């Protein structure tokens, strides 16, 4: 009997404190890249683009700041080809990193080229009118050594670590130092990834990928792995296909095969495990799914 009373008293105390506690709001994070709200993202993009233009002007080049819509279109162009579903894209091009590599500067690329889209047509047009020497210097000033990582591409992949040149200089003035690192998780993702079920899913992912022959521990790691391997083969993305040695071409071919297989397996696990689990956790944390 005494036990029942104690239990009821304990419950009473719990209920007493539950009221105010439940009044606290869920973690406040934005739903856009880097955990930003859409308003903050628009402002950040405008600030970065203006700073890129200023930096390029100091280098003697003209750069027209891309507006939010242009950068956004560059972000959405990543791993996407009009008329092709995500699944079809992965089946045909994997992540589109090594499989669609041509070694040309983004401004001179044709077809699928999210980097070019994110730079905006005016900058692309101006770039094409430059002399070959100026084109090299322009991209070195704008992008540093990694020509495929424009601001839009980096923003989409939430990884500024590969940025260089004026793009990196401008981003560093707007984003926080920890956001510049490759290991940065935006607050929303960090919350989701703290969930034990997701940790378990990541262990499952690593196990399944190992069974398939890939030493990859997370979907994010997979893309970076491909990018780094591609950079080492193509001397930082500066070698055109025609300029590659037979050994480099063979290595690229091997990487493309690897990317296709890894991307297919990754998508399989993503659809089967991660997407439903993340949706569930997000609903629990934020009372809705975050895209």
């Amino acid at each position: 009997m005494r036990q029942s009373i104690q239990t009821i008293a304990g419950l009473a105390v719990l209920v007493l404190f539950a009221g105010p506690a439940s009044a606290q709001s869920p973690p406040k994070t934005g739903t856009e890249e880097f955990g930003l709200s859409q308003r903050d993202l628009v402002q950040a993009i405008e600030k970065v683009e203006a700073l890129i233009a200023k930096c390029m002007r100091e280098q003697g080049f003209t750069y027209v700041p891309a507006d939010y819509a242009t950068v956004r279109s560059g972000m959405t162009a990543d791993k996407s080809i009009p008329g092709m579903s995500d699944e079809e894209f992965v089946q045909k091009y994997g992540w589109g990193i090594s499989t669609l590599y041509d070694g040309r500067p983004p401004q001179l690329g044709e077809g699928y080229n999210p980097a070019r889209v994110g730079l905006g047509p005016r900058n692309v047009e101006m770039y094409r009118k430059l002399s070959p020497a100026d084109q090299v210097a322009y991209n070195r000033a704008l992008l540093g050594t990694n020509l495929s990582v424009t601001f839009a591409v980096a923003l989409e992949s939430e990884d500024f670590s590969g940025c260089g040149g004026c793009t990196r200089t401008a981003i560093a003035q707007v984003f926080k130092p920890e956001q510049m690192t490759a290991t940065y998780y935006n607050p929303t993702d960090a919350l989701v990834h703290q969930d034990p079920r997701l940790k378990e899913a990541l262990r499952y992912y690593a196990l399944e990928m190992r069974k398939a022959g890939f030493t990859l521990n997370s979907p994010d790691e997979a893309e970076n792995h491909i990018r780094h391997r591609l950079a080492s083969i193509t001397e930082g993305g500066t070698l055109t296909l025609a300029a590659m040695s037979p050994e480099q071409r063979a290595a690229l071919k091997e990487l493309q095969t690897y990317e296709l297989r890894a991307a297919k397996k990754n998508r399989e696990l993503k659809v089967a495990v991660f997407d439903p689990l993340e949706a569930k956790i997000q609903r629990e944390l934020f009372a809705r799914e975050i895209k």
Partner: protein
Amino acid sequence: MTQQRIRVLGGVLGIVAVAALAGWWGFTHVKSPADVAARTAAPTPSAILVPVEERVLSSNVVTRGTARFGLPQPVSIAPSMLKAQPGLITTLPAKNASLREGEVLLRASGRPVFLLEGRTPAYRDLMPGVSGDDVYQLQVALMRLGHFKGAPTGEFDAATGRAVTAWYRGAGFDAFGPTEEQQAQVRVMERELADAEKLRVSTAGAMAGADLGIESARATADHDERVAKSELAAANAERSRVVLDPRQPEAARSAAEAAVLKAEAGVKAARLSGELAVRNAVDAKKSAEIDARLASERADRQTADLKAARLRLGVQLPVDEIVFMPALPVRVQEVTAVVGDAARGPVLTVTDNQLSVDSAVPLESAPFVKVGMSVEISEPALGVNARGTVVRVADGPGTNGVDGYHFYFEVRVDRTSTPLQGYSLRLTIPIQSSKTAVIAVPISAVSLASDGTSRLQVQEGGKLEYVVVKPGLSADGFIEVTPIKGTLKRGQLVVVGYESAAPAGTP
């Protein structure tokens, strides 16, 4: 008893539950006015302070350009009259080779083609006796190379020949000597001179003979006239005797008269004949004099020609063995001839060794860029730093391959050991400068007061005070300020803005 306790406890639980609900509602809906005010009030702003600086301000035009060597110039070889046909090219310089004065540009059939500095292109064979600007620049070039001593005269003399010989020998070649044709020509001229000398002697003899002829003619004429006159005198005497002698018949008188008339005619004829002979002799002399003069002149001319021809048998410089370029050294840009080609006409293209940067500025910046302005040349990514000078600004937009919204200009790069050709470079042209260090603050520190004055907010003893300033040159985000009231020193802190706490997650 137990039931009662349970009911009491249930009642208490119910009250607790109601209290919890009330608490929850209260936490979420009931706010005190102080809470509301605290939530809606703007955060207390804190001033962003930066130090006043002392720096040189300069306003710049920044643009890009690609470095190159000078404009391409074709190198052509002119045909030489000293050679029956051009030689065949046996060696050619490599692309990008740098060629200095006196170096062999190429070889043709074992003969060199030298490179010399000079504005007048090589257009004729140079040999002893020739003079002109081309000879002068040859002498100056040989002087630079250390082979020609003395003052350049513009005449190809023995000293020039010796200098050419030394120059060729120094390069491992023999100087170009007389040709067989030239030697044969000299022999012909020698023969012709000998003939001319003979003619001069003979005509001189003929002239001396003509003098004697005149004297002879004069003497003959005089003699003939005297004879005729004596015959006339005799006839006159006979006529007088016949006329005075009454015994003489009329026929005799007539005969005497006729004899006188005949004698008179004889005198006249002798005089005329003598005059004619003398005149003929004088004419013959004149003719002999002309012949002698012509023969002498011809001989003199032949002598001079032979002397000149003999002089030309010395060292010569065929026109196809020298190339004059306005500025040296040069860099081979393109070799158009191939080994085995005849060494004539254009054989290669060179550029001068002076680096230039082709660039352009937008229309709005063009008026600030002037010839003679100093230019800072850099490329941070490559660690390049050099200086140059604006040497040309286009008269209008859209020239030299730039679009219609830009003005072309050329920058001459000062001597640098860094190979810049082909690289895109940043050009910074200071168009306005404070020249010396001035008190400067960030532009955002200066604000406009309601009375139209410019002012700064300066931290003084922990408090912020306004200082009225006169703004000056603005550049690189800074502006020169001169305090009108109060003082402003380097290191003093001025307000450039106010900081408020940003919401979490905002970059």
